[in-house]
């Protein structure tokens, strides 16, 4: 792969190079595996024969459903190798034990107790490999009254508190329900925390060479991801209200989302910043379109006058200024003058963002079996000493079976046939 900065990222190793990760994960844990793989770890994804059920999640290439065409699966499984293995067979368990003995980390998302019921619990797996780290990332963790509850992204966004904070002002959408932000972010929240825990265990292991077991909970990860909502309750007993496109709050706050000329919105944080100095800068910004109104009136040197005119300034002048141009124009005009504003963009608009191109963000990923390559989103952070990179597209079902089972574990081609016929791989 090459990135669009033109630097050759082939020659340098990622920060996690040399680590072998076994991933036994569905939609709950595949993102965590991608985070590890894109940073250079050798992530071997172990799927049941026939492929992981998350291959059935759309959208699909050309809207043609097929386990090798799920764009969701493609995205969340970059930089991994893939093998198939049926852990519910004796042969499968034996092969898994051999792989585990030579691995650094196992990431699994089975229901609590499943691996133990197969004799593949951490205590058993670590015996031949004391440095082994095993992370179980499950909806509610390995203990507690909700341990065996079923979940989904929407369920986690409800119980985690995301929905209680997100939605609409009554004046914008009367009787609106709490809204769960989209995109599958419950799995992202769980994946981020699981990655952190695994990395902490790995850093610890560089000193002690001892592994450990990690019991990570997606519900807890989501419950931790609502900024100050918990503090508002713990310290002030407040339960916050939902407000259109802006922060939850105990009372109603001025709006921050304004409609631009092209129908897109701009997030403009103005309230709470209205000092006489700010009014002067705001006048300069609004004047770029000749729309400063009365902002240069000396009366605004008086904070009391500003306070009395908050609605005039925000709902009048700022709203009119944004309505007079496109969201992108307002965004850049404001940022160029030091205002922390942003256009509310649909994801596809990011492909046109020159800043991302400057950072070499977009990556061409080859899909050799299709004879095509596609543009994927790139790195959250630039590691200047050990590059992030997508080393390969998501694995095809069992794509690396012979590489792992034959080249690495020494099985013959004939062995592979027997395993396939017996639904082991």
């Amino acid at each position, binding site marked *: 792969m090459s990135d669009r900065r033109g630097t050759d990222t082939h020659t340098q190793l990622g*920060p996690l190079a040399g680590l072998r990760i076994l991933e036994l994960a569905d939609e709950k844990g595949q993102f965590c595996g991608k985070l590890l793989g894109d940073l250079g770890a050798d992530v071997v994804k172990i799927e049941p024969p026939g492929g992981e059920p998350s291959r059935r999640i759309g959208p699909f290439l050309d809207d043609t459903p097929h386990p090798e065409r799920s764009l969701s699966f493609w995205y969340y499984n970059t930089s991994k190798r893939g093998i198939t293995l049926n852990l519910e067979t004796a042969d499968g368990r034996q092969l898994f034990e051999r792989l585990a003995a030579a691995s650094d980390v196992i990431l699994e998302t089975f229901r609590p107790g499943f691996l133990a019921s197969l004799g593949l619990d951490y205590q058993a797996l670590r015996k031949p490999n004391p440095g082994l780290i095993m992370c179980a990332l499950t909806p509610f963790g390995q203990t507690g009254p909700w341990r065996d509850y079923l979940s989904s992204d929407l369920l986690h966004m409800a119980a985690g508190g995301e929905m209680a904070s997100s939605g609409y002002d009554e004046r914008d959408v009367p009787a609106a329900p709490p809204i769960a932000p989209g995109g599958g972010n419950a799995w992202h929240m769980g994946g981020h925390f699981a990655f952190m825990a695994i990395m902490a265990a790995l850093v610890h292991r560089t000193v002690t060479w001892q592994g450990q077991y990690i019991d990570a909970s997606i519900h807890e990860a989501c419950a931790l991801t609502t900024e100050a909502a918990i503090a508002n309750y713990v310290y002030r007993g407040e339960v916050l209200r939902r407000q259109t496109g802006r922060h939850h709050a105990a009372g109603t706050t001025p709006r921050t989302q304004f409609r631009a000329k092209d129908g897109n919105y701009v997030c403009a944080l103005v309230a709470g910043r209205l000092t006489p100095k700010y009014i002067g800068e705001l006048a300069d910004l609004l004047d770029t379109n000749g729309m400063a109104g009365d902002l240069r009136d000396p009366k605004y040197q008086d904070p009391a006058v500003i306070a009395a005119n908050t609605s005039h300034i925000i709902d009048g002048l700022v709203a009119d200024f944004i309505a007079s141009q496109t969201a992108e124009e307002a965004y850049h005009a404001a940022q160029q003058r030091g205002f922390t504003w942003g256009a509310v963009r649909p994801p596809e608009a990011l492909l046109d963002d020159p*800043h991302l191109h400057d950072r070499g963000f977009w990556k061409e990923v080859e899909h050799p079996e299709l004879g095509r390559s596609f543009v994927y989103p790139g790195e959250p952070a630039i590691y200047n000493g050990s590059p992030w990179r997508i080393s390969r597209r998501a694995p095809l079902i069992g794509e690396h079976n012979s590489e792992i089972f034959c080249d690495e574990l020494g099985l013959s081609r004939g062995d592979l046939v027997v395993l396939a016929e017996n639904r082991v791989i």
Partner: protein
Amino acid sequence: MPQPRALENIRVVDFSWVRAGPWATRWLGAFGAEIIKIEWPESERGRLPSTTTPQDIEVNLNTSGNFNDTNVNKKSLSLNVRSAKGLEIVKRLVAVSDLVIENFSSRVLRNWGLGYEALCEIKPDIVYVSMSGYGHTGRHHHYTTFGPVAQAASGLTYLSGLPGEPPAGWGWSYMDDTGGMYGAMCALTGLYHRNMTGQGQHIDLSQMVSSVPLNGPALLDFTVNGRGSRRPGYPPGNRAHWPGTPLVNNYRGPTVAPHNAYRTDPGGYNDWCVIVCHSDEEWQRLVQVMGAPSWAASAKFATVAGRLQHQEELDQGIEAWSMTSGKYELTERCQAAGVRALPVQSAEDRVEHDPQLRHREMYLPIEHPALGMRKVQNAPFKLSETPAENRLPSPLIGQHTRQIVEDLLGYSHEELCAGFADGTFWPTKRPRFPYMEEMLR
């Protein structure tokens, strides 16, 4: 004997402020790293203004509840970094530290003489994580963000809302939380790499850019299929699909119905339960939990295609039933029968009513000198050998100045007193807190 810590003997110089950076170092502290937070009261943002100070306690630099939760496990050094003496002290601190983390705008620390190259001369294997709005490279590196702006500009805000309405967005700075996660993830990855290779590095994290990969499937639908998110029926609120619009995946999971939030008894602001059925079998179980009402027996609800097509009627039927029970009772009945359901939970619900979070000890009290005993949020993972724990409350501003300057860096007590007198450790004209007077004895 206390268990060992994962980041035993790791020292972090923490220049971060507001929320995203401090949320990152909070977790490094929970893993046992020594976090030295460099602060200056004149340019403080994070302690003040505070909307989370208890009603009966005076608002000052030491009484923000949110600051306390965000900054447990840290020590505070108050220091004017923009003085020659302050700069020298920082450099001595970096020389005995492993990691520097900061979330200023892109050129700030470099302009202070504390850029990566300068710090490498002092500590060649330093891991340096910068967390800026747009990153240190790229034409808009000087743009600034708060969470909501990063969320807007990256496409995250757009994914939340009802079709035909303005974006509902995220009701908090999701990217301050998540930006903090990435800060900690970069730090841990950099430390691992350093321990394995002996090489430090500069890691350039951008809050806005790190939001973009969270839209992966939506972006691939565009780059591969040419389909954008700006289309009828998207985003579909809490549903997997908005009835009457083309059947297109919503990037949250499988396209199924029911998949929504339903009102529950007694109909208060947060009395909602979400229910999702991933299969016909799960739907039939829900029908049984509802007491097999006659409307649910209709053939139009027997298939997923039918339930998607008749979603309005389906949701009305479910809500008529859900409104007769409380959200926790409903959850228990559904889950006992193998139906996916959970309550919408406010902060109060999570702290007081969630039996799972209680069992997992998510909120345990810690004594804070100014705020008293207060519950703080614990880690969402349990490490068997090196548990992540909150052992220290958030520091009072400058609370550990003497300890760091004298005990760690070896300055004399006279030098500490001189530094207070000349404005290195506290603005000369600003009243000192009583614990600072104590420090100077």
